[in-house]
């Protein structure tokens, strides 16, 4: 009998990936730093080359500014760019949140019933294929000049990728796991919250990678049409004044916002989806 009660065989006891989510998390950070090294060096080299070419050729600043001119404009009036940047960030995130909530609800409704799927999906597709730039002026007329119309545009552009992915995610449950739930006579709510929703999370995060930068586009497009606040309006005003250093500074701040949001999304994804195949190897951005 002692033979039968032996512990699992040797080949069976070795864990495949022994590290905890936390230690892998730090490994990812340092890998991110290492991966950032070469792009930053390259970017600095391009900037230096640009500076030299502009100075030597004597191109006018209203056509191409030197990086140093952009830098001094940006750092000289950092409060100004931060203020407008934060407004754009606020509008992007607000719109992203609204669009995501509506999209997840719509996806849940569609996953629940074929009839609703056939009703909701074509409408969602219609919204997606209509150029956002064409709808933006309409929203400004309807919703006025505050942050709300910009958020609505960001929400609209966020909606479709999040909805489609969540819908696919809710449907893409491992059939064997589904069998197990059925065999144990699991209720509808258990199937939804213990199986479908967690199964949909990897799809949801894949959508976020697309939707987060899109929401910034939505906010900026909205700001173009109402020249009061935000980096979009800064760009329009700078464009009218042919104020290139300001224009480039606004672009640089927008790029930083996009990069920051994408990085934060990737970090959250790693935290939440540590169990998923996609997180076992490969980069997060």
């Amino acid at each position, binding site marked *: 009998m002692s*033979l*039968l009660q032996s512990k699992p065989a040797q*080949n069976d006891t070795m864990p495949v990936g022994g590290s905890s989510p936390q230690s892998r998390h730090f490994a990812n950070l340092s890998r991110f730093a290492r991966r950032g090294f070469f792009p930053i060096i390259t970017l600095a080299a391009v900037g230096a080359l640009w500076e030299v070419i502009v100075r030597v050729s004597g191109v006018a600043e209203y056509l191409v500014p030197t990086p140093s001119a952009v830098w001094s404009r940006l750092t000289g009036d950092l409060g100004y760019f931060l203020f407008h940047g934060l407004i754009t960030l606020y509008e992007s995130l607000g719109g992203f949140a609204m669009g995501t909530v509506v999209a997840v609800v719509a996806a849940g409704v569609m996953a629940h019933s074929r009839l609703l799927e056939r009703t909701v999906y074509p409408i969602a597709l219609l919204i997606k294929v209509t150029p956002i730039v064409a709808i933006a002026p309409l929203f400004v007329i309807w919703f006025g000049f505050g942050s709300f119309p910009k958020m609505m545009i960001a929400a609209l552009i966020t909606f479709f990728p999040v909805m489609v992915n969540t819908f696919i995610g809710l449907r893409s449950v491992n059939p064997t796991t589904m069998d197990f739930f059925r065999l144990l006579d699991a209720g509808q709510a*258990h199937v939804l919250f213990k199986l479908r929703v967690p199964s949909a999370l990897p799809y949801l995060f894949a959508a976020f990678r697309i939707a987060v930068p899109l929401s910034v586009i939505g906010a900026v497009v909205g700001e173009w049409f109402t020249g009061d606040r935000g980096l979009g309006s800064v760009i329009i005003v700078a464009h009218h004044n042919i104020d290139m250093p300001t224009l480039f500074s606004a672009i640089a701040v927008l790029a930083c916002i996009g990069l920051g949001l994408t990085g934060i999304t990737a970090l959250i994804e790693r935290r939440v989806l540590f*169990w998923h195949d996609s997180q*076992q190897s490969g980069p997060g951005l």
Partner: protein
Amino acid sequence: MGRGDWEQSVVENRKPHVTFRGLTHEYGNGDARVTALTDIDLEIYEGEFVSIIGPSGCGKTTLLRIVGDLLTPTHGTVRIDHATPYEARHQRLFGAVFQDAALLPWRTAAENVSLSFELNRDADGDDKNRDVDELLDTVGLGGFHDSYPYQLSGGMKQRVALARALAARPRILLMDEPFGSLDEITRPDMGYELLRIWEGRPTTVLFVTHSIVEAVMLSDRVIVLSPRPGEIVDVVDIELSRPRLQFIEESQEFADYTALMRGLLKGARREPLAV
């Protein structure tokens, strides 16, 4: 392999647990119709370990899915203590282990086992944690309660799946090639572990496999199915004494059974259809 008189009387006195009557299942309709199972008549007794063996596509899995009410047969009936599979499922009589461990990857081993309690609306809160610990120890995963599936090997995942199935306290354990994806070294160990665990529990086991050795090693009876359409070729009683100890595969008796089974499976193989 005729049964002895003694064996006969024991079998007759036992209570049939699962009864198949004229069970036939066809997939698809019209020209695309494929008959997976034909005319299965069979009794499985309470506490019996029964294997269903046959080549790929003989309807082994179909049979198991019909018992578990995951599939409705086109003809015939299955009764579990007079209950239909549907009723039996609602009475929560079943536990299952599949070839794919099908663990929830976002849950630790312990959380996967406690899933069975969570899905059971009338489970008692206090017993849960103690039972989970005990079950994981039983399947030999004492130190891996907080490991996630991605940190476990294939064999360990199947151990978690087995613990999860046992947590539902099933009267009937449905096992669909549970060790099918494991290597030849891990596989017999898992078989012996399963026997050890089963011997301590009054559970009827329906075990689908395509391994002759596994079927002989584990079972009281082996149902041999023919391919397409799946028909019962023979039912073989395995009269090896229990508990079955390691290295039983080396005995002459064991070799006789596997030879018999190989012959039955060979005889059942049909000529390929000329299309």
